[in-house]
């Protein structure tokens, strides 16, 4: 046990409670059940899938009543300090309510969304896996446990984006998302390792209580930011999120707006108490957040697809939260997060309904849907109003609180940028609602079919919550204050203050922008391509192309296809490097005796003669047999040195090798052909001489090096304890069993390789044949 580790153990609170751990494991168990028994459960599958969400919510509600702040600690790999730690505190309660609560609505929605029961089952199974990961992320206290949960959400997201795997576009989007987010995730892992080394703990709560400082910490934070920014679709990594809209709409609503993309925000919220004061935090996080907010809002204005509009809107709102965290306003950021989850999930679910009902999400085609689906239109209006910041919605209350904080702290530049982006938010919120429900561009009526009532429950409930929390925001305010340790008051009527004036100004300007765009059409705005701006998609495609090009070039150089070259490179490398290390012991090697046993010179002559003859004979089979002679003579040397195990193995290997040679050689010409032209005779002689000299030198040095007798004694006594008298075998199966396992795994892989290679050649021949 290292010193560090002893310290970690010492400082960790002994949390023996397990309810959160069991709740999260419940999702995984039910995922397996849903996946395995989907066919029999039929229409009841959604009920089964809803169970862990309900249990999780109940457990959290019950835990939240007590004042304890325990951490459920589950040691995983104690030697590496890897553990799963789940925190029982206000932060967990709020975020779990969002994750499990909206998740439950998504399950209900999916029941109506997927007509095909098999599809519904596999969707719900992956949704449950995702929820387990997400629930783990939002309640994690251990860095590496958090990382594992984090990557569970990445993989689940990949599978859900590519859910319609028959579509090439869906597969490409899924690949893009997983490449971008796992690259960030890997950087984050490196950052976690650095943070652990600097801070001396893997626990987030301990880390922020005693935050390390210095250059290494700044580098670590930078790496962690990469993970958070890629996950939360921050500029310039935001491009994967619009692509992720290839996922089924319930997945988009849940993963790509309400929960998973919040993981980066959540991580920043966790770390903010310890690091928000540092320079790198303030500048990087704030700048990236503000940029993202503007870029997302501008892009959202120019979308015809309702879902893409929401995706860019999500990018913008995530930027808003990141900017607030950058400035240290964590409570406000958490409040915005909750508000956003409520209204954005509702909007996505509504788009999914419209998509199913009419078969399109294009604002140029949709026409007067609002008159057909009045309840949905009202819910949509509430959600859009919350996004735009219209009172009395929760979106208004949280944005108002943020404005108030920025004015109080006199952070004028961020305030100006956020207010500007908010104007655009008002505009695209209007464009979204009128695009979805308003009168269309054509007179042509659109066929619209009523869909399952299960698809209306979610939007209505979310819209209701948006209004209720907007009217009575005090409890949410005190909850986010407790969670972040930063005091904030959420109120519906803040009084006649500058913030209210700003809100009014933003709303009015936003409506102005909206009415211009609505009248003249959003085509008046230029696209990124019109402006010749580099797009994220373009950079992504370019990096993939470059990577392939480098790989191709490297393969072309390394894999020349010439067998003599391969052998030359391999032999030189294998012998040269270790020989260099051993060259220090040259004196002892030179003074070694010629031989210890008179049998040695005889065997040496046989080995040399066999080897020389193998190079001279013209027939392949003869050469193989001569190599066998060399091998058997070497066996003799092992016998002389009384190493029966090695001798036995060498003997058997030699026999089998010759026999296998015979099998292969029966397919080749009997005689050797022309000498290879890819490597000149001189070069081949040079490599052979080099190999011979270095192998001899290495053998001499190894055998004359001072032996550490204590190692031998240790092995002998260890073997006795392990109950074996054959030390060689005890080493293979007891002491170094892991190495043996590795070796046989390589052997098995080689077997698969042979089977695949020979098999493919045979198939090719059959296809090429008549």
């Amino acid at each position: 046990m290292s010193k560090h580790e002893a310290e970690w153990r010492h400082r960790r609170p002994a949390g023996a409670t397990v309810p959160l751990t069991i709740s999260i494991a419940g999702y995984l168990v039910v995922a397996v059940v849903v996946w395995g028994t989907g066919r029999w459960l039929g229409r009841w599958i959604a009920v089964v899938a809803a169970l862990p969400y309900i249990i999780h919510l109940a457990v959290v509600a019950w835990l939240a009543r007590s004042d304890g702040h325990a951490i459920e600690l589950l040691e995983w790999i104690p030697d590496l300090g890897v553990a799963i730690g789940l925190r029982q505190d206000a932060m967990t309660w709020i975020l779990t309510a969002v994750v499990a609560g909206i998740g439950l609505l998504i399950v209900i929605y999916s029941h109506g969304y997927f007509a095909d029961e098999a599809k519904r089952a596999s969707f719900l199974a992956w949704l449950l896996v995702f929820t387990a990961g997400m629930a783990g992320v939002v309640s994690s206290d251990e860095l590496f446990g958090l990382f594992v949960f984090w990557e569970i959400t990445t993989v689940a997201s990949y599978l859900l984006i590519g859910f319609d795997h028959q579509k090439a576009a869906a597969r490409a989007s899924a690949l893009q998302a997983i490449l971008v987010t796992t690259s960030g995730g890997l950087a984050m892992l490196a950052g976690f390792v650095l943070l652990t080394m600097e801070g001396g703990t893997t626990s987030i709560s301990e880390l922020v209580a005693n935050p390390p400082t210095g250059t290494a910490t700044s580098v670590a934070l930078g790496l962690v930011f990469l993970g958070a920014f890629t996950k939360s679709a921050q500029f310039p990594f935001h491009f994967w999120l619009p692509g992720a809209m290839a996922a089924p709409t319930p997945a988009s609503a849940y993963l790509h707006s309400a929960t998973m993309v919040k993981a980066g925000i959540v991580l920043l919220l966790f770390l903010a108490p310890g690091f928000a004061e540092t320079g790198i935090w303030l500048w990087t996080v704030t700048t990236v957040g503000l940029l993202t907010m503007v870029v997302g809002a501008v892009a959202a204005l120019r979308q015809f697809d309702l879902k893409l509009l929401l995706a860019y809107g999500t990018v913008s709102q995530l930027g808003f939260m990141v900017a607030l965290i950058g400035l240290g306003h964590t409570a406000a950021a958490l409040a915005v997060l909750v508000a956003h989850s409520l209204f954005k999930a509702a909007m996505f679910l509504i788009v999914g309904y419209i998509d199913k009902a009419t078969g399109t999400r294009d604002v140029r085609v949709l026409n007067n849907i609002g008159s057909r689906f009045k309840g949905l239109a009202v819910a949509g209006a509430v959600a859009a109003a919350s996004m735009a910041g219209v009172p009395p919605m929760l979106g208004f209350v949280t944005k108002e609180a943020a404005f108030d904080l920025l004015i109080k702290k006199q952070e004028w530049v961020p305030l100006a940028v956020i207010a500007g982006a908010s104007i655009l938010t008002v505009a695209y919120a209007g464009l979204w609602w009128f695009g979805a429900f308003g009168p269309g561009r054509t007179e042509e009526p659109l066929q619209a079919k009523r869909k399952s009532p299960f698809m209306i429950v979610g939007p209505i409930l979310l819209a209701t919550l948006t209004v209720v929390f907007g009217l009575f925001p005090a409890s949410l305010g005190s909850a986010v204050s407790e969670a972040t340790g930063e005091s904030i008051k959420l109120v519906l009527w803040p009084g006649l203050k500058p913030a209210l004036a700003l809100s009014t100004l933003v709303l009015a300007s936003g409506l102005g922008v909206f009415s211009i765009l609505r009248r003249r059409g959003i085509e008046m705005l230029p696209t990124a391509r019109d402006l010749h701006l580099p797009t994220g998609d373009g950079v992504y495609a370019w990096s993939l192309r470059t990577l392939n090009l480098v790989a191709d070039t490297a393969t072309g150089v390394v894999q020349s296809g010439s067998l003599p070259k391969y052998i030359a490179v391999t032999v030189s490398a294998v012998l040269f490097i270790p020989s260099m290390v051993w060259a220090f012991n040259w004196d002892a090697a030179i003074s070694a005796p010629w031989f210890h046993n008179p049998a040695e010179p005889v065997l040496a002559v046989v080995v040399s003669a066999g080897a020389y003859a193998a190079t001279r004979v013209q027939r392949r089979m003869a050469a193989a047999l001569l190599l066998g002679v060399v091998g058997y003579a070497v066996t003799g040397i092992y016998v002389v040195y009384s190493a029966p195990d090695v001798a036995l193995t060498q003997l058997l290997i030699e026999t089998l090798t010759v026999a296998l040679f015979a099998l292969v050689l029966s397919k080749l010409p009997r005689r050797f052909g022309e000498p290879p032209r890819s490597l000149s005779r001189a070069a081949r002689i040079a490599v052979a001489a080099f190999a011979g000299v270095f192998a001899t030198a290495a053998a001499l040095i190894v055998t004359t090096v001072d032996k550490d007798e204590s190692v031998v004694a240790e092995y002998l006594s260890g073997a006795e304890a392990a109950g074996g008298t054959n030390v060689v075998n005890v080493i293979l199966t007891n002491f170094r069993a892991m190495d043996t396992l590795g070796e046989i795994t390589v052997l098995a892989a080689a077997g698969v390789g042979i089977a695949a290679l020979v098999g493919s050649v045979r198939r090719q021949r059959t296809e090429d044949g008549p």
Partner: protein
Amino acid sequence: MKVRFSPLLATGTRTMVPTLVLFSLYLLVVGHDIPGGGFAGGLIASTALLLIYLAFGHHGLHRALPVDPEVITGIGLAVAIVAGLIGLVVDQSFLAYAYAVIELPLLGDIKVSSVLLFDVGVYLLVIGMVGIATTHLGSERT
């Protein structure tokens, strides 16, 4: 079994294979105490299979051992891993080992080591591996 190449080889193979297999099992069992072990045992057993292949061809081999060598390789690796997992479950450490001396009537004290299972995995994997090489590098499957 149909004789393929030489009656001499066929007769020799018929005589030797049982002995070879028995010897290979012997090496496998005693490996912990005297020269032998899963690897050497597996190689001896492979030699027996190779002899059958040379004497009776692909069909002969398949009749003597009606399991694909790829499957044997996989089972071998799985057995070795399971042996490791047992250590993990029983002793909290992957590939942990223990041994016991059991007294049997007539046979006397017999030592049973937990690593024997691991060695059985190695044994099977080596057989499967040589089997793959033999059947794939040998003549076409006809």
